[in-house]
C-alpha cells in the first residue's frame, strides 16, 4: 500500500532539466529517505510535492488518487531553510500557520499545548521568535510542521541546528510519528540518520533517479562477500600468506584492541562464509574479530554517485 506514488515527473527551468522522468513509490507508514548531492533536484521535487512549483509533466498520486490543491493540508513541510515571523509571538504564529493548514483555532490551540508538553516547552508562548535561541526556534518550527497531524511529512534536513540532545529528541519524535501512522519523506545529507531511520530510499543524481528501494535490499545488493577478520597468532604473517592463497586478502583498519592481524578477506566465487571460518579454525589462530563488511549507505551513496559521473 503506497501513500505516495510519482510517475514520470519532469521539470525544466529554462534549458536546465531539474527533474528527468522521476518515478518512485513511498509505502504507507514508512520513512522514505530522499538522498542526493547538492543541486541534484531534491528541492525541486519537494517543492512539487508541496505544490509550490508545478511540474512540466508527470503524475502524483496521494492515497491512490491524483494530488489535489486541497491536499496541501495533508502535508507537513519542514523546509531546509527555516523561517518564522521574527516579531510575531510563538503562540500567535503557531495558531496562524495551523489555521492556514485548515485547522480551527480551537483545535490548533489544543494541539499546540499537546506539542508544548511533548517537546517539553513551557512558558515560551508569549515570547517573540527573535527572543528565542536557535534550537528553541527549531522546535517551534517542528511543531508548526506537525501540528495539523498530517499523514505525510516532508522533512528537509530536520536535524540541522539541533544539539545532539535535541537532535535525538527529534529523531525519536519522527519514529513516534511513524508509529502513530504517519509517512515521512526525509531529505538529508547525514547518512547515519538514513541508516537509523529510513525503510526505503531513493537517490537522485543530476536530476535522475539512480537508485531506489528498501534499505535492506539495497545493502544486500551492494554486499561484496567481504569479511573483517582479526586474529592473534605468533605466525600471523605466515597465516596471512596462506589466507591470500585461498582468498582475496587486503590489510584493513578497524577497531579491535587485541587483534594482531587485521584483514579484509573477500570470498571468491563459490566459497561460503563457513569455508573461510573453517580455514581460520584449522590454522589454530585465536580469532578476535569476525564480521561481514556491510556497505554503509554512505559508501553506497558515494559509489553510486561516482559511477554515474
Amino acid at each position, binding site marked *: 500500500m503506497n501513500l505516495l506514488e510519482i510517475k514520470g515527473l519532469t521539470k525544466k527551468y529554462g534549458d536546465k532539466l531539474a527533474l528527468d522522468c522521476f518515478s518512485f513509490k513511498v509505502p504507507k507508514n514508512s520513512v522514505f529517505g530522499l538522498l542526493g548531492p547538492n543541486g541534484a533536484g531534491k528541492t525541486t521535487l519537494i517543492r512539487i510535492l508541496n505544490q*509550490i512549483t508545478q511540474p512540466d509533466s508527470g503524475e502524483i498520486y496521494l492515497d491512490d488518487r491524483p494530488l489535489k490543491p486541497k491536499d496541501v493540508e495533508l502535508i507537513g*513541510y519542514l*523546509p531546509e531553510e527555516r*523561517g*518564522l*515571523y521574527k516579531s510575531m509571538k510563538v503562540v500567535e504564529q503557531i495558531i*496562524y500557520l495551523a*489555521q492556514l*493548514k485548515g485547522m480551527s483555532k480551537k483545535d490548533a490551540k489544543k494541539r499546540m499545548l499537546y506539542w508544548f508538553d511533548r517537546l517539553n516547552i513551557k512558558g515560551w508562548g508569549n515570547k517573540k521568535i527573535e527572543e528565542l535561541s536557535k534550537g528553541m526556534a527549531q522546535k517551534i518550527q517542528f511543531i508548526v510542521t506537525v501540528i495539523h497531524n498530517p499523514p505525510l511529512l516532508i522533512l528537509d534536513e530536520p536535524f540541522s541546528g539541533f544539539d545532539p540532545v535535541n537532535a535525538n529528541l527529534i529523531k525519536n519524535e519522527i519514529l513516534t510519528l511513524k508509529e502513530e501512522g504517519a509517512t515521512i519523506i526525509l531529505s538529508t545529507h547525514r547518512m547515519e540518520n538514513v541508516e537509523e531511520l529510513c525503510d526505503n530510499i531513493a537517490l537522485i543524481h543530476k536530476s535522475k533517479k539512480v537508485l531506489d528501494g528498501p534499505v535492506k535490499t539495497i545493502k544486500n545488493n551492494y554486499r561484496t562477500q567481504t569479511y573483517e577478520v582479526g586474529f592473534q597468532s605468533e605466525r600471523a604473517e605466515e597465516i596471512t600468506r596462506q589466507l591470500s592463497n585461498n582468498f582475496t586478502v587486503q590489510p584493513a583498519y578497524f577497531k579491535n584492541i587485541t587483534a594482531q592481524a587485521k584483514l579484509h578477506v573477500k570470498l571468491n566465487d563459490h566459497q561460503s562464509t563457513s569455508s573461510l571460518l573453517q580455514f581460520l579454525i584449522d590454522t589454530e589462530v585465536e580469532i578476535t574479530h569476525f564480521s561481514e563488511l556491510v556497505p554503509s549507505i554512505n559508501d553506497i551513496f558515494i559509489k553510486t554517485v561516482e559511477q554515474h559521473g
Partner: protein
Amino acid sequence: MGNLSLIIKREYLARIKNKAFIIMTFLSPLLVVGMIFLVAYLSSVNNDEKKIIALHDVQELINKELPNTNQLAFVDFSNLPLDQAIMRADKENLYGLLYVPALEDAAISNPNIEFFAKEAPSSFLVSDLEQKISRIITDTNLANAGIDKTQMQQAQTKVNLQIEDFDGQSTSKLAGYVKMVFGGAAGYLLMMFIIIYGNMVMRSVIEEKTNRIVEIIISSVKPFQLMLGKITGTSLAGLTQFLIWLILGGFLLLISSSLIAPNEPGIASAATPVNSDEMALLFQNIMALPLFKISLSFFIYFIGGYFLYSAIYAAIGAAVDSETDTQQFMFPIIIPLMLGIYVGFFTVIENPHGTVATLFSHIPLTSPIVMLMRIPFGVAWWEVLISLSILFASVFFVIMMAAKIYRIGILMYGKKPTYKELLKWLKN
C-alpha cells in the same frame, strides 16, 4: 475563515501592532499642529522687532502724517544734509532712511522718493511704506485741488464680481484658492500614503523572503493569495491611520481654533491679518465644497491608486533580496507619482478642465492624484466614472502581472534580476 481573510487579518494586525505605526499615528497630528503653531509663533516673534527709520523731508511733506506704530518709529533728520543724515543713520544703526526730495510743484504726481538701508529692506515694509506715503500725498493733492476727501470717498464704489458657473453655482477667487488647497492637499496626501504603505508592503515581502517563511506559507496557500492578502491588510492599516488622523486632526483643529480665534485671530497668518469677516467667508467656502464627494473620491482613488502601486511594490520586493537592491526598480513608481503631483500643481490650478489636466486624470498611474485635485473644481460624474473604470481595469491587470513576478521572485535567491529577466518572468 478562508485563508485570504486569515492573511489579511495577520497582515493588518502586524502593521497596526508595530510600534512605529502607533507612534506615527498618534504623534503626527500633534506634530503637524505643533508645527503650525511654531511657524505662526516664530513669524510673530520675527515681526516684533521695532524698526526705527530716519526721515529726511525738508518740506515736511509727509513727516507729520507718518504715525509711529509698534513696529515702526520715525526720527526726523531733515535738519542735516542728506549725506550726513545717511551717515548718521548708519552710525546709529537705524533700519533705514527715507528721503523725500524738495518738490517744486505743489501738485505732485510722481515724486522721486528714495529709501536707503544697510540691507535690502523686507518687501512687507517697503509696500507698507509705499502705501502710507502714497495715501498722504494723494490726500495732499486732493486738498490742493480743492476736492473734499469725504465726498471723494463717498463717490468711490467697489466692484466685486459674483462669479457663477453656468449651473448657477457661485464661485469666487477665495473659493478658487480653497479648492486648490483642498484638491492639492488630497492629491499630495494620496501620494504620501501610496509611498508609505507601498514601501510597507515591499518591506514585508522582502522580510518574508529573507526570513524564508514564505516557503512555509506558500506550501499552505497560493502565492497570489499571500500577495493579495498582504496588500489588502496593509491598505486597511493605512485606512485606519487615515481615519484616526481625520478624527484626531478635526479634534485638534477644533480645540486650537476655539482657543486661539477669539483673542488673536491673526496668529495663523501673522503677516496678513485676516479679519473675522474673511474668516467666516473662508468657512463658508469650505462648507460650500463638495466635502462628501471629495472624501468619497479620496477613499475610492486611494484604494485604486494604492492597489495599483503596491502591487508593483510587492513585485519589486519579491524580485530582490534586500532593501538596498530596490533602488533601481523605484523609478517606475516615483516618476509617475511625481508627474502626477507636478501636473496637478501646474495645470489643474491654471485650468482644472484643460486638456493636459483632463488627460492625466484618466491615465491610471496619475489619475488618482490629478483627479483628486480636479474634483473640488467640479468634475462631471461620468468623467470620474470613466477615470475610475480605467483605473480599476489597470489595477486588475497590474495585480495579475505583479503576481507573476511575485510567484517566481519569492523563491529566487542570490542574483538581483535585471529588467530583461523580469520581462521573461512576466511572459512565463
